[in-house]
């Protein structure tokens, strides 16, 4: 399966009468955009704002981030199972408005979820301070329950992403990158002398606001399965997960999966990257045992010599990470783990809720409990008062001048467990 990604680099975004990309500038027809994004009878109102890198702007609470993409050639579309049918995606040509992002905000439930600062110290920790953000604020009608509210905002974001992505359909990309993974036997034969590597892609899947979808399926209901790496670039995996801003994977990150990109970068040179096993993180121990057994079996069946395993979230997913690590190691397969840490505000507590002596190669996204002070911003998009209730915030987080003291947990993408960022932690 081969996917050609055509990058159209976006250097600015502005409202205009026609939605189009001209000389690297994304022009957006506000009314049309809002009509598409708000096209759900459960939505009472939608609004849109622009937030650009370097501006003194804070977006709070951020729910999801979506990259505008469009399928220009090949099967299916973007976000299979949601915005198009369930044809297999990941082949043909996809255009990307690189540098642009849809950021959704809204009060999903009382306390959700992240902060994105476009400048200042907080901007260092979130990747979405470097994108030109089209911020979509969604208010549902009265009487909507929490889970439906989450879905309404999630789908509005996807519709917005698709709408904006279409502006890149007839634009000639600035560059192309091609990714290819062949059917298993062919792929193994292509580099018979290189060690074989698989990516074990753990998804947060525990229930309301803790869900992830694969081709539209709630991933807590799947048994671990195989994905061609290119499928994620077309939005095969999306986030419905919005509790822990720092270490959940926004849809944008799934679409630009850093582990998959980095594995492709050394594919055919250092090793033979065979593909991804997606697995879940469930609530019951029986599910955890079943999924880790299936994952280890699949990885062995595919013939991996080594795997990277990434976690999403913290606490009980630490148990899934440890089970996957133990069971895969037991089959004689080498592992590298990616996690983040909850070592307390002083960094002195135990970082994970579980551990294993065979987990001897770990990359960490940093300590999510570390405290950061976010200065006053000129513009706040969303609801600043939620600073006190989002995960990582606390009473007293929001000072009267508008500055905020929170744990890094509150910053979207700060301690990414798929290694999107450069943050790490060391023992001092």
């Amino acid at each position: 399966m081969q996917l050609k990604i055509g990058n159209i680099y976006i250097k600015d975004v502005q409202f205009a009468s026609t939605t189009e990309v001209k000389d690297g500038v994304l022009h957006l027809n506000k009314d049309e955009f809002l009509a598409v994004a708000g096209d759900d009878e459960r939505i009472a109102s939608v609004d849109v704002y622009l937030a650009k890198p370097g501006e003194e702007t804070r977006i709070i609470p951020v729910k999801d981030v979506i990259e505008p993409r469009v399928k220009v050639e090949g099967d299916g579309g973007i976000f299979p199972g949601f915005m198009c049918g369930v044809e297999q995606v990941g082949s043909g040509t996809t255009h990307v408005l690189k540098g642009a992002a849809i950021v959704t905000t809204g009060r999903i439930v009382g306390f959700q979820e992240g902060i994105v600062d476009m400048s200042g110290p907080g901007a260092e920790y979130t990747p979405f301070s470097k994108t030109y953000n089209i911020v979509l604020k969604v208010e549902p009608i009265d009487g909507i329950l929490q889970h439906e509210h989450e879905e309404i905002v999630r789908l509005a974001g996807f519709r917005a992403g698709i709408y904006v992505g279409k502006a890149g359909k007839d634009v000639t990309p600035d560059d192309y990158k091609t990714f290819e993974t062949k059917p298993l036997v062919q792929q193994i034969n292509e580099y018979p002398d290189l060690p074989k590597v698989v990516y074990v892609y753990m998804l947060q899947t525990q229930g309301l606001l803790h869900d992830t979808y694969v081709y539209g399926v709630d991933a807590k209901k799947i048994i671990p399965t195989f994905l061609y790496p290119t499928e994620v670039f077309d939005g095969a995996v999306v986030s419905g997960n919005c509790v822990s801003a720092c270490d959940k994977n926004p849809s944008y990150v799934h679409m630009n999966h850093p582990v998959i990109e980095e594995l492709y970068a050394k594919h055919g040179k250092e090793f033979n990257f065979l593909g991804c096993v997606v697995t879940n993180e469930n609530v019951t121990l029986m599910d955890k045992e079943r999924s880790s057994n299936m994952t280890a079996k699949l990885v062995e069946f595919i013939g991996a010599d080594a795997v990277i395993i990434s976690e999403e979230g913290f606490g009980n997913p630490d148990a899934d990470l440890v089970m996957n690590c133990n069971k895969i190691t037991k089959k004689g397969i080498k592992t590298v783990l990616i996690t983040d840490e909850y070592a307390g505000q002083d960094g002195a507590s135990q970082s994970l809720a579980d551990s294993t002596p065979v987990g001897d190669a770990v990359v960490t996204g940093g300590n999510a409990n570390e405290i950061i002070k976010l200065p006053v911003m000129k513009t706040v998009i969303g609801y600043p008062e939620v600073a006190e209730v989002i995960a990582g915030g606390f009473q007293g987080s929001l000072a009267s001048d508008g500055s905020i003291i929170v744990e890094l947990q509150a910053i979207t993408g700060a301690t990414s467990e798929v290694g999107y960022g450069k943050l790490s932690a060391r023992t001092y």
Partner: protein
Amino acid sequence: MGIKIVHYINQFYGGIGGEDKADYAPEKISGVKGPGMGLQAAFGDKATISSTIICGDSYFNENIDVATGVILEMIKEENPDVFIAGPAFNAGRYGVACGAVCKAVSESLNIPVVTGMYIENPGADMYKKNAYMIETTNSAAGMKDALAKVAALALKLGSGEAIGTPELEGYMARGVRRNIFCEDRGAKRAVDMLVQKLKGEKITTEYPMPTFDRVDPAEPVKDVRKAKIAIVSSGGPVPKGNPDHIESSSASKFGKYSIAGIDDLTPENGETAHGGYDPVYANQDLDRVIPVDILKEMEKSGEIGSLHDFYYSTVGNGTSVNNSKKFAAEIAKDLLAANVDAVILTST
């Protein structure tokens, strides 16, 4: 004059004398003394040691509370930017004194502290969490290198510069996780680590999973019917009235109590000193913590060879690793002398 520093040394480095002067009470002199000269040289004009405190090692260790109080007062008067103690190398009591003073200064005066010692100095384990502790050689032969590192770290602390990793600065890790930004993003670091692992190269994990010091299991007893068994407990069992006043937590001592002639523990002859749990049940019947009644019966019926006439007790709750190590070593010595074969250790 740049950064102001107070330096703490023992009677030996203070030029007072050796072991015969180890009971020397704390004294503050102005300016530098002994190793302080080397430190001052390393500082150049960036920092000044305004005064030096000299204290005998025995004096300090035998009068910890008083000595700490006096020394704290001396330091407070100076109001330094940084406090330095030692380096103590492998001198045990000196190391403990350096660590204890550093801990007190950092906690009560909130002044950054640096010391240095050999990694096996008992003061290292006890206080490395409380001070930046430069790892030194085991003798003063490594003085020059130790002073250079101590001085460099003190300058950084005094000027509020960020402190680097333990490897970089040469101090012993304090076990605190702190965030840093790396050159590469996490995904690239993971893939690089994977490649290293595939090649069989040595890798440095970013998060060492907790591992624990292990002791190989001792050989089993061949036949308990011939063995002498002893009872040890960290659940704080004590004779009624707690004669040794074992603390309810953070115990500083252990007790050794005779059970000769006692066949059953009752509210009249036993209770618990432990403050970490509801003591009602143990006070009603201490056999619920140490099974003296059963073992006495077994001794009579020949199910065990014999029961040691004493039990050993401390309170596990909050007791420092070092103290419990120390207690255990003393208990083990006693058990050895009494020809004990095996130990039942109970915890609550």
